[in-house]
């Protein structure tokens, strides 16, 4: 696993979390006119920190080579909770459309950034595998 370092693992987790975030934002936008619907929010940073730091905390003591090593970065399961900052409108809906659109744009941009970095990482691997002669 030495070729696939913690950066790649981290990027993988980030992309998975961004996908979950995108799904939740889509759900909020679709339900912007649903009476009584409460906007939902992904506890993003906490989940990412947990996923990245979990390696140190949850590593199983392996005193036999037959022991299974737990890979903690995948799958991700962040907490999704009602957004407490939402203001309830007359029909009990707490979705703020412009805020959701802004969040979605930000999320998409950061997803693209993570994908781009992963691409570069793999490109570097490919470069070294092909002794610098390969197509980057």
């Amino acid at each position, binding site marked *: 696993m030495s070729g696939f370092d913690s950066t790649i693992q981290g990027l993988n987790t980030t992309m998975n979390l961004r996908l979950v975030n*995108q799904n*939740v934002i889509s759900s909020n936008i679709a339900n912007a006119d649903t009476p009584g619907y409460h906007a939902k929010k992904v506890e993003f940073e906490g989940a990412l920190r947990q996923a990245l730091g979990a390696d140190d905390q949850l590593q199983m003591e392996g005193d036999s080579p037959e022991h299974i090593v737990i890979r903690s970065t995948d799958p991700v399961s962040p907490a999704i909770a009602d957004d407490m900052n939402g203001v309830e409108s007359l029909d009990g809906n707490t979705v703020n459309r412009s805020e959701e659109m802004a969040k979605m744009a930000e999320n998409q941009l950061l997803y693209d950034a993570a994908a781009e970095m992963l691409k570069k990482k793999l490109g570097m691997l490919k470069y070294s595998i092909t002794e610098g002669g390969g197509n980057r």
Partner: protein
Amino acid sequence: MDFFSSMRVSASGLEAQTRRMNTISSNIANAETTRTEEGGPYKRKDAIMTATTDKESFGEILKDQLDQQVQGVLVDEIHEDTAPPRMVYNPNHPDANEEGYVAMPNVNTVEEMANMISAQRSYEANVTAMNAAKAMANKALEIGK
């Protein structure tokens, strides 16, 4: 939890907003209708929406906690507005009562127009969300190219 989950949710939003737009068109078209099958003037209709879990996702089948939080939308019922009809004095109208008043539909055209703009904006927001999911999926496919 995948890209298609996001797209299905946005599609449900598009469908719901289309239905809402249909009821608004019906209200505007019938703003002066005094005769209906049920008798009496046309009554204003309203699409009532409700949140629903994404039935097609694999997580829904597995009762995944994460996927239950991602909800689509669905028009639950077409609600008839029970507000009283607008009474307009017009003794020459064939549907006028003894005092010369005609019961006109309880449709406020200005309100319908405002509703229509809201439905249009919501539709556009759903299209944007779907395009964002598509762009992200395309970006992910570029990895390793």
